[in-house]
């Protein structure tokens, strides 16, 4: 790494750690006003998120879908788009997984699972890719279109599971047919967390390399900086925007695929529980950096995991976790203003430069 890159990483780490500590301090003040000892609360936050194997598993289970849905915002963001369609892409991916999965019972497991995963990714990718294409070709604002596509995806799911693909055997919960057991993926070795986590980590790392170490990624950064300049430089900007949207949507679609293959086995309203929206939060916390998404998803997963214990030990309302998340989000966003302004964190300037 060059000295400048080292200084940049040092700056990012320092600012984020400081933001996190400030968040904890403010949250401590908040719980003190609610009549609790903040040190007890910190201990329970730690106990519920990372202190034991079971807590770590809980944290990682919560983090797994967030990594993939965060990519849905982060990758298009590098090309200068604000995409908030992770929720819809996840639902569409899950529906594709069900529709393809129910036809593949006879295939060998590895092939069937690969095909189901691929179809989930392609469906999610096409969903967000369409928003990218609408923006480039028709000037439709991608934030509005992806927001509306979320509603459409969820409405389509409700329509399908309450009629055309409904499993009438499951009387009390409206849900689709189940995929065959041969297509269900289990837990990873050594740890009680489903394979969505491993795929999420791999996706984040691969996209980090693509975005940071390839000429395509470099081109996307130029595009994200200034679309006109990229156009003048002769970059195929339409194709790049659509490709970034496709990649992000594919990640969220894959998250939906794993909700089907690893968690539910069928589509139901439990797919739309906010993983897509939480992913937006993760992407912003990670400043749209795919590698940082891994850490931020785990952080947010940990907050969710320990939020339950916080409720149980202190009889705090569920919204307490949201207060903590809200404080964290505001402070991290505000801390973005600190980049480049704190003297001792800046790369050393050569004399005379």
């Amino acid at each position: 790494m060059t000295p400048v890159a080292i200084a940049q990483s040092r700056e990012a780490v320092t600012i984020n750690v400081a933001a996190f500590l400030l968040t904890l301090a403010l949250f401590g003040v908040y719980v003190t006003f609610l009549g609790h000892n903040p040190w007890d609360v910190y201990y329970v936050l730690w106990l519920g998120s990372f202190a034991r194997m079971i807590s770590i598993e809980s944290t990682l289970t919560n983090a797994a879908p967030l990594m993939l849905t965060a990519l849905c915002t982060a990758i298009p963001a590098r090309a200068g788009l604000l995409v908030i369609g992770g929720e819809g892409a996840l639902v569409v991916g899950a529906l594709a997984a069900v529709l393809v999965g129910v036809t593949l019972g006879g295939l060998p497991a590895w092939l069937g699972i690969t095909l189901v995963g691929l179809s989930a990714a392609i469906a999610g990718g096409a969903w967000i890719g369409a928003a990218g294409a609408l923006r480039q070709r028709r000037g439709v604002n991608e934030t509005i279109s992806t927001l509306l596509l979320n509603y459409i995806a969820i409405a389509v799911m409700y329509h399908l599971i309450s009629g055309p693909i409904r499993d009438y055997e499951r009387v009390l919960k409206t849900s689709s047919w189940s995929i065959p057991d041969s297509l269900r993926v289990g837990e990873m070795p050594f740890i009680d967390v489903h394979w969505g986590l491993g795929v999420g980590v791999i996706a984040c790392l691969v996209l980090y390399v693509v975005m940071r170490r390839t000429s395509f990624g470099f081109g996307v950064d130029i595009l994200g900086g200034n679309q006109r300049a990229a156009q003048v430089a002769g970059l195929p900007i339409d194709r790049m925007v659509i490709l970034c949207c496709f990649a992000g949507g594919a990640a969220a679609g894959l998250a939906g695929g794993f909700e089907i293959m690893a968690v539910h086995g069928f589509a139901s309203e439990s797919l739309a529980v906010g993983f897509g929206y939480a992913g937006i939060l993760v992407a912003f916390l990670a400043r749209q950096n795919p590698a940082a998404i891994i850490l931020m998803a785990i952080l947010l997963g940990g907050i969710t995991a320990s939020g339950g214990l916080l409720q149980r030990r202190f009889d705090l309302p569920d919204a307490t976790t949201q207060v903590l998340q809200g404080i964290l989000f505001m402070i991290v966003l505000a801390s973005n203003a600190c980049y480049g302004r704190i003297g001792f964190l800046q790369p050393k300037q050569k004399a005379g430069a």
Partner: protein
Amino acid sequence: MDQTRMNRRGFLRHGGNLVAAGTLAAALPSLVAAQGAVTVGFIYVGPRQDYGWNQSHWDAAQKIAAMDGVSVVEQENVPETAEVEKVIQSMIELDGAKVIFGTSFGYWDSLKKMAVEYPDVLFTHIGAIWKEGDPENVVGYRGYTEEAHYLCGMAAARMSKTGKLGFIGSKPLYFIYNNANGFILGAKAVNPDITCNVVITGDWNNPVREAETTNALIDQGCDVIIANVDSPKVSVETCEQRGVYSCGYHSDLGALAPNGFLTGAEWNWAAGAEFMQAFLAGEPYPNLKRGGFAEDMIALSPFGAAVPQDVRDEVMAAKQGFIDGSLILYKGPLKDNQGNVILEEGESIANSDTPFKLGVDFFVEGAIG
């Protein structure tokens, strides 16, 4: 976890726990659950103070927490995803829970999975869908709320001036049909000419449509309304604003409508304590249980101020009839609202005939819509 089930993953987890327990639990003894008490975990799918389904379970949690030697831990807003399994594990391993009350229908698969992993913990579920082959440490139980609806219907018919009642249902499912039929049969028992407009919203939880439907029923002349939705709060409050009577469902909603609330059909999920005590004492217990007033699995909300004493006495006498078995809900002659004969004169269906009740997909005569 016994030795034969100790695998690599289990070893890692428990090994990690030992280390962590040694270093951390000692640091803050005040946070470790009280020694000697049995810890019971309640998991809710929504907020526990929702004036509805979740609150009916919270009522039970409070009753069970008041029992000797029991401490209750609760977690609300737990979605029906992989998260619920992790919450269960956390309750068992961090809080030491021995009994888990899974209070949402969609927790079923997760409860069964966890029951295999933790054979020394009891899991209860509210669907009463346990079948042979499912883990022995899972139980399902559910009350016949149609009996409480019958009593609501009696009070409603006595208080109605227009002779038109309203029933709002969420989904066209067997227990919604039974509840509507109970409400109508109870009403017809005191006023054979009464009718009831029935509307199905299609959603467990759709406050906007519930408010619209309530207003529409009132506009059609219905002056007592009962809503079978996740939280009847909106409907009861709308009735109060419009100055008509309302009945509750799930838990006690009397506080929402001091003028117009009559009574309500409640669950008594605290009946699950029976399985809990048997399980902890090592005694046999059924894996499936359904029951009404006779089995103390349902309850009637306290009467609202509007209900005069003679009506209260009449309703309580009918409740006694359910308890001693002299009052039968479905008995002939009975027609559905399409005119088809369901039961001939002299025929009757036992109140405990679950297979019949599961198959009910009709509204009885008197239902409109």
